[in-house]
């Protein structure tokens, strides 16, 4: 988006609105969403349509694999397995397959050959974990309860969940009603989708 303004990375909300055929309000909302999601940095006053803005697209954050973790591969086969006749060769193949970066040492995890029984091999490697995201703050349970995928109707009383009922039919929709001290629950469901 930054490249679509006449001035390259510098432009105005009005410029962008003209380029993407949207209202300035929508452009502003889009820019705020992009900033909030970490895709863009905006310098300038977003409030004015004609105020100069500098838009800088941000590269995706580098992956964070976390601290190295030990992975144990065990019981890889019997000593008759050809892999155990050339342990170092197998390690080379594992390394080239990306299980551990080349140069990773295996101090303390010396592979060994089995002696007629089952062979065991221990390998230390870098576990590739998903990039970590900031954890969302915890909030209270839903005020009126939930329907689980097991068709349980669950309500929270004093912070403690209570399975009020297990309904027989697939429940597509559930509505609380105020009768009897606001604890009456109504559930109306059907398999057909809404027509609106």
């Amino acid at each position: 988006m930054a490249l679509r303004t006449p001035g390259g990375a510098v432009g105005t909300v009005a410029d962008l609105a003209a380029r993407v055929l949207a209202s300035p309000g929508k452009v502003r909302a889009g820019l705020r969403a992009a900033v909030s999601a970490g895709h863009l940095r905006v310098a300038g006053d977003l409030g004015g349509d004609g105020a100069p803005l500098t838009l800088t697209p941000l590269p995706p954050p580098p992956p964070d694999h976390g601290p190295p973790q030990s992975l144990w591969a065990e019981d890889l086969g019997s000593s008759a397995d050809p892999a155990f006749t050339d342990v170092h060769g197998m390690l080379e193949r594992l390394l080239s397959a990306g299980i551990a970066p080349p140069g990773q040492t295996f101090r303390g995890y010396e592979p060994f050959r089995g002696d007629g029984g089952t062979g065991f091999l221990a390998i230390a490697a870098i576990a590739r974990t998903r990039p970590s995201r900031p954890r969302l703050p915890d909030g209270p349970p839903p005020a009126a309860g939930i329907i689980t995928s097991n068709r349980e109707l669950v309500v929270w009383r004093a912070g403690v969940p209570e399975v009020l009922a297990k309904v027989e039919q697939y429940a597509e929709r559930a509505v609380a009603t105020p009768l009897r001290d606001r604890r009456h629950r109504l559930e109306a469901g059907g398999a057909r989708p809404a027509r609106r």
Partner: protein
Amino acid sequence: MLVRPDGEQLELASDPEFGVALSEDGRHLAIASIKFGRRDRFRLCLADLSDGSAQVLDCPANFSIDSLRGGVVTYGMPVGGEPVGFSWAPGRAPWPVPYQEREVDRLTGTCLCRTEPGDYVITRPDGSKLTVPRRYDAQDSRLAPGARWLYDFWYDPPTMTVTDVSGPAPGPTMTWPIPGGRGSGPVFGRPTWEDATHVLLTIPHGDVRAIRIDATSGATERLGLDRHGRGEPGHVDGGTEFDVGGFVEPFQLPSVTRHPS
């Protein structure tokens, strides 16, 4: 199905459709009971939740419930290939009313319609109208209970957009990211408004399965769904959390505006 506080279940109507309408006081519920088979059956049931009894209207064709206000059910039904609006109250014959494809807010009576070009028109109970131009990239917009917000979702990146439609002009419009959502389609479960500003969403296949978003600030929370050792062990995370399929819609009383005296 009515579930009482002690867990007792009572069937109000068989083959219920998704679209139901709850009365202002929460005592009555209009249900479309639709069964297709060798002999199709289309029944409009007005159930009294205090005792489980129901008044039933046999309809000649498939219909969809529009609203339940002042003890009157309004519904749309095709007649001669054209949709026609009807109103019905127990003890009377149905009478025709102008038909409009619309969404009616139970709390305020505010209506949401779409014009032919796709703009949204909001009609308030006092007759005033507000037009919100269509967003080229949005899914269908809906009214939040209380009719303050017009809201919709986008999936790449996953976001929710809310527009304040309570004033003389639409806005401000705010777009909030949905953490953990995947850009693979309209993936969010049925949104449920917990109160005037907080909406609950399920996120299938996400790290976090259920969240609460504050429409005014975009602040997002992960919902506490810990089983506390109760319930049936599920298959998600070894059953430590409930596997949410949907939220119970909280009951809210309509707002009452005092007449200036």
